[in-house]
């Protein structure tokens, strides 16, 4: 779309080059197939080697672990371009990078980092992240998955996880489990669990009407025994998985804009060419209002993200700032997708166009990685100092 506010002038030459390279990859490899994948309910696995070669997995982690060592604005722009393709494709990269590679990088031992990160950057190992449970979504502290340390130092894990992106595709899972009673502030620890371990089972969740081009699974862990070195040694307490989610939802703030941009581009081009009452529908005030609102919200969202990325690069960003960006950008993106769908009239319900696919996808994005409502409470608490959460 047209750079209405000259936001490119806020970006470096490398940041623009990164965005344009990923943009071209998505144009050539995702857009031609994604509508069909969505209808078939299939994640396009065939694009994973290309994404890895491009270097999108864990792109903001250091080069010494086989990653691209990009800054956070460049990383955000990658997420934007991937989600311009589809939220499922961006989710795949978010999980791999922010929810699996990041915790190994942040909480892992040097051996774990050396072993996993280069292979995950190369797409040779795919990961998933198990925090949410059937009865514990917005309240992860209540999780019942337990890991018990054995006398030989190994761990035995029991529990179930739900809504796990890449669950059935992954070779490793980062599983979060309690290791002690709730009085222990560091009870929740992270484990690297190979998905072929005896007792580990991943089942695809069927009947999704959203994120259909993404694998979502239920994980069941029944007496899953992992060695001592499966533990992420520096993880401890709920803070650890929440730090991962802050990374991921930073990327989502950018990603949602990508979906919004795709819908805006489709709607504006349709408005200029679709003739009704002998003139393009873009000439009618009602459609212009739709397009003007879309453009305005995208520009605001982009400015929000660039500043958030700069703060993150300086190590100055707060989880509350990320909540604000995720909450706002996913919200405006869902509105934009719906209005684009409506502008497209009957054509808007077809998989041949992208608006309704994005619209349905964004409903998941609205709910995952901290629901819109939970982020509202985070901001409410930041403003008032008062905790409005359940407990």
């Amino acid at each position: 779309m047209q750079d209405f506010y000259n936001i490119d002038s806020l970006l470096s030459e490398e940041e623009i080059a990164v965005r344009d390279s990923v943009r071209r990859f998505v144009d050539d490899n995702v857009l031609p197939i994604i509508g069909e994948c969505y209808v078939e309910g299939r994640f396009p696995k065939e694009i994973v080697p290309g994404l890895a070669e491009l270097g999108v997995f864990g792109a903001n982690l250091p080069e010494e672990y086989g990653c691209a060592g990009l800054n956070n604005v460049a990383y955000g722009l990658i997420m934007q371009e991937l989600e311009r393709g589809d939220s499922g494709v961006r989710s795949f990269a978010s999980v791999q990078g922010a929810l699996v590679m990041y915790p190994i990088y942040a909480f892992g031992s040097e051996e774990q980092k050396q072993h996993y990160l280069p292979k995950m950057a190369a797409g040779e190992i795919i990961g998933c992240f198990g925090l949410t449970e059937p009865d514990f979504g917005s309240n992860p502290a209540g999780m019942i998955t337990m890991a018990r340390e054995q006398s030989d130092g190994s761990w035995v894990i029991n529990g179930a996880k739900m809504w796990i992106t890449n669950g059935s595709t992954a070779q490793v899972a980062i599983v979060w489990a309690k290791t002690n009673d709730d009085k222990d502030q560091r009870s929740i620890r992270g484990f690297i669990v190979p998905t072929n371990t005896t007792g580990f089972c991943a089942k695809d969740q069927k009947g999704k009407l959203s994120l259909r081009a993404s694998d979502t699974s239920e994980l069941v862990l029944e007496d899953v025994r992992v060695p001592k070195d499966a533990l992420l040694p520096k993880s401890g307490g709920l803070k650890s998985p929440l730090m991962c989610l802050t990374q991921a939802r930073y990327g989502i703030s950018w990603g949602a804009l990508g979906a919004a941009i795709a819908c805006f581009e489709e709607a504006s081009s349709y408005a200029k060419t679709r003739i009704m009452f002998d003139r393009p529908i873009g000439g009618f005030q009602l459609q212009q209002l739709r397009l003007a609102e879309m453009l305005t919200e995208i520009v605001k969202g982009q400015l929000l993200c660039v500043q958030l990325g700069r703060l993150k690069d300086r190590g100055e960003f707060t989880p509350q700032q990320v909540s604000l960006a995720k909450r706002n950008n996913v919200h405006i993106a869902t509105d934009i997708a719906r209005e684009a769908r409506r502008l497209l009239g009957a054509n808007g319900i077809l998989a041949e166009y992208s608006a309704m696919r994005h619209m349905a996808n964004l409903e998941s994005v609205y709910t995952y990685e901290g629901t819109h409502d939970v982020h509202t409470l985070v901001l409410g608490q930041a403003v008032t100092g008062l905790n409005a959460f359940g407990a």
Partner: protein
Amino acid sequence: MKIAVCIKRVPDMESRFRISGDGKVVDETGLKFDMSDFDGYAVEVALQITEKLGQGEVVVVSLGPDAVQEALRKALSMGAARAIHLKADQVPRDGFAVARALAAELESGGFDLIMFGKHAMDTMSGVVGPMTAELLGLPNVSAVSKLDVEQGKGTARRELEGAAEIVEFPLPAVVSIDEGIARPRYPSLKGIMAAKKKPLESKPAQLDPTRLEVTKTELPPDRQGGRIIGEGAAAVPELVRLLQTEAKVL
């Protein structure tokens, strides 16, 4: 194997073009630019040759204002080893002036192979490659659709109308690359970061006065709407008549 690839920065051909106030050139305001398509194929072929041989160096060269460094850096991020920017206020419309400046630079470079795109997407002259070859006294093969090189020798395939020819030539040589030979790789994110650290040498181009002047540039006329003559077999005689008398194609 030392390979030079000469690349040109051109406007995105999907753009909606406007003519400048003096009616002579394209107005560049608001246009997006990129490496010319055929030049991108040439960079890809050059990289594939050095990768296949397991040795060699790809050097990219571009003539023009500072903005061409963007195209050079893109080639570096694809994998070229270093870049040379021949600085000029603008790219002369006279291909011979460009060829002279390139030849002056390339002459002493010790290149085994000098590559060009078949033509630039904006001017479509296709003369700079052959002229550079002539100035350097090197064999030239144009519009190459397949290229193999080994020490001292190259083999190229050229597509002709309804046929193909295979050409052998000694190195050093100049070749220009046709489409369909190789899909340019996406600059990888690591490549983009590495490109920042690769050498990019900028120096003034040795340009002679241009001997060509563009006096006018014009856009094609707006397309007229179609005309429906009638329907079914009954409309055929009138259609044939119009094709003969008006369109004059029969």
